[in-house]
């Protein structure tokens, strides 16, 4: 059953003379699954995620949700506050909700250790490597105990080795069910990454974005990038990526 249903979402930017249509009628059901959204640069993927998260308003269309959904958001760049320590960066969403600081920090520590950052809680973001900062970004998304985890190109700014390790960790966290996350929506440029991780791949056209094709990935997990069946899916996806 769908947790979130997007119905004919339209979004444009700009006012007066120059209007830039970004999303052109997106209809999509998000169930308890891992969805990858694949689309060319600047087509409106981040905008779509923000609309799902409810921080940007669509011009028209409808979003139906089931019950009280909580969203976690992994940003394209880590977007950490340089004047807060790692643990306070992670605890911030809770503190802002009025949770007691001590409780918020304890919870933050729990999620920091889940993403493998034990012992780094008192560091400042500038003192961490890019991969570690991205982990902090992920821990912050998890600390609000989200039902839906939205990820905006979470691995695109990392070196290939770090990215691959972090992909495996995200899949682990997702499959092991230790968190509250029921669905993940991940934006990406990277076809292989989408095939490796997602249950369904939603392929968008260049701006204004429409859905050209939704491909189900039925491969069993853990998936093997070198297998023939994996390559077949990759080839199938490439057919729709212009």
């Amino acid at each position: 059953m769908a947790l979130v249903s997007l119905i004919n979402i339209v979004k444009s930017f700009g006012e007066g003379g120059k209007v830039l249509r970004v999303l052109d009628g997106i209809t999509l059901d998000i169930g308890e699954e891992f969805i990858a959204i694949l689309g060319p640069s600047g087509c409106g993927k981040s905008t779509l995620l923000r609309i799902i998260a409810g921080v940007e308003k669509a011009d028209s269309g409808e979003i139906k949700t089931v019950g009280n959904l909580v969203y976690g958001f992994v940003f394209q760049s880590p977007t950490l506050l340089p004047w807060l320590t790692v643990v306070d960066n992670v605890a911030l969403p809770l503190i802002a909700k009025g949770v007691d600081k001590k409780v918020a920090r304890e919870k933050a520590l729990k999620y920091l250790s889940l993403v493998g950052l034990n012992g780094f809680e008192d560091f400042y973001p500038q003192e961490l490597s890019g991969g570690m900062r991205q982990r902090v970004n992920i821990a912050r998304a998890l600390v609000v105990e989200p039902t839906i985890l939205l990820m905006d190109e979470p691995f695109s700014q990392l070196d290939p080795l770090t990215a691959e390790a972090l992909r495996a960790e995200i899949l682990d966290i997702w499959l092991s069910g230790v968190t509250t996350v029921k669905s993940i929506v991940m934006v990406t440029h990277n076809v292989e990454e989408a095939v490796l991780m997602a249950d369904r791949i939603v392929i968008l056209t260049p701006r204004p974005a429409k859905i050209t094709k939704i491909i189900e990935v039925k491969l069993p997990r853990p998936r093997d990038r070198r297998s023939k069946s994996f390559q077949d899916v990759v080839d199938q996806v490439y057919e729709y990526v212009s």
Partner: protein
Amino acid sequence: MLDVVLLVLASLASFGRMLAAYILSLLVAISLGILMARRRTAEAILMPILDVLQSIPILGFFPIAIVIFVSFLPKSIGLELAAIFLITTSLLWNMIFGVYTSVKSLDPNMFHMASVYRLKTFSRIAYIYVPAARAAIAANSIISWAGGWFFLTSAEVISAGSEEYKLLGIGSLIMDLYSKGDMLEFYIATAVLFAIIIASYLLIFNPATNLVIQHHLLPAWHRAFYYIYRFVSIVWEHIMHLGIKFESKGMAKHNMVIAVPLLTLPLLYINVVANLQKSPLFILEFMTNFLISLARVSLVVVVSFMITIVMAYLSLVKGLGPIIAIVGEILASIPAILWWPILSPLAVKASWLVSFIVFLQGSLWYEFFNVMLFGVPKIKMEVLELAKVYSIRGFNYFRYILIPSLLPSIASGALSAWGGAWNASIVAEYFESGSTTIDLGGVGSMLSKYTYGGRYDIVLYTVILWALMIVLLNKSVWSQIFKRVEKSFVVE
């Protein structure tokens, strides 16, 4: 002999007044700066108003403010509040712009982050906006604090029409001693004033600035500052904590509701513009005086620029930064009116020189601290090394290395210096104590004279025409200068 008790009380009173005005400025600057950076409409409305306000001596309104405050409140409280209000107007503007620029230049992703995690107003202020603006707040506080002292005396002694209001304070005490002719006591009291000014910099503002810009740029006593810092952080954290708790319970609306008393000012305009048309003679008088002041102000801005460049050179190349900074802080803080008695041998014979010095004090330091605190720390070492490697010296060093590297801060400093010079005109063009009256003409003098004469209607007209001229000049001259700077001199 000088009454020691009186001296101590007067010092405390002045310091308290300054502190109250500073805290008020800080709170207003944070609220308005954030509001303008985050809300288009607020930006569109407030920006031009602030531009004008920073270039008109609001101190000229002192008598009017007194009338307003005293009519609502008991006289002693009303006078005190009027003084604090007016000192605030000489602290406030650059602090607002400091907060505004810092918040405005935040990474847009921070705002996405804040809205995704539902950070409301207090959380944003506590965790994003104020930390982002720390450096700008600290550096601008240095300038503002001096600006406050510069106008302090003028806010403590005011003769309005037949009445003279005097508040207990070190500024009014010093002026009193001077007009009574007690020179020794005058110098002692002046020394005490200097001591207070120096102490406030060494203990509070310099260490705070060093801390947030993470450069030991200014002389400071860090050990003592630690306690002040702890105290202020604890108070601030508690206030923010309460705010966050309050808004998380859904009791506060998401939108900031901030009273903007300044918005009532445009109403005055409409009221008066009609009357103005009746008096071409007055307009002629105004224009003549305005042009006189404009010439002085322009000269002062140019001289400020040249002195600043020389001092930037001395601190960058000769390492004289800390000394120049503390001397600057003291000179900038000397109350404007004091320059006349201090330089009394010159006051009558070479009044233009004293006037020029007062102008310069009200103007130069805006330029100087802008360049020293925002420009110098950001200079690229590579550029300086390049100059060394190719032994670029003399005029070429200034022309091709130093000035271009500092240009953005020079431009914004010059704009503040321009505002400061206009403000200083009321104390630089007219001085009155006992039997001495010095009147050098110009709009500042015009404003002072009509204020002392109790002609508030003319004061109002003067200020309105003044504001119109400032708008005109800002729109034509300054916006052009800034366009040039942005285009040609961005050193990356």
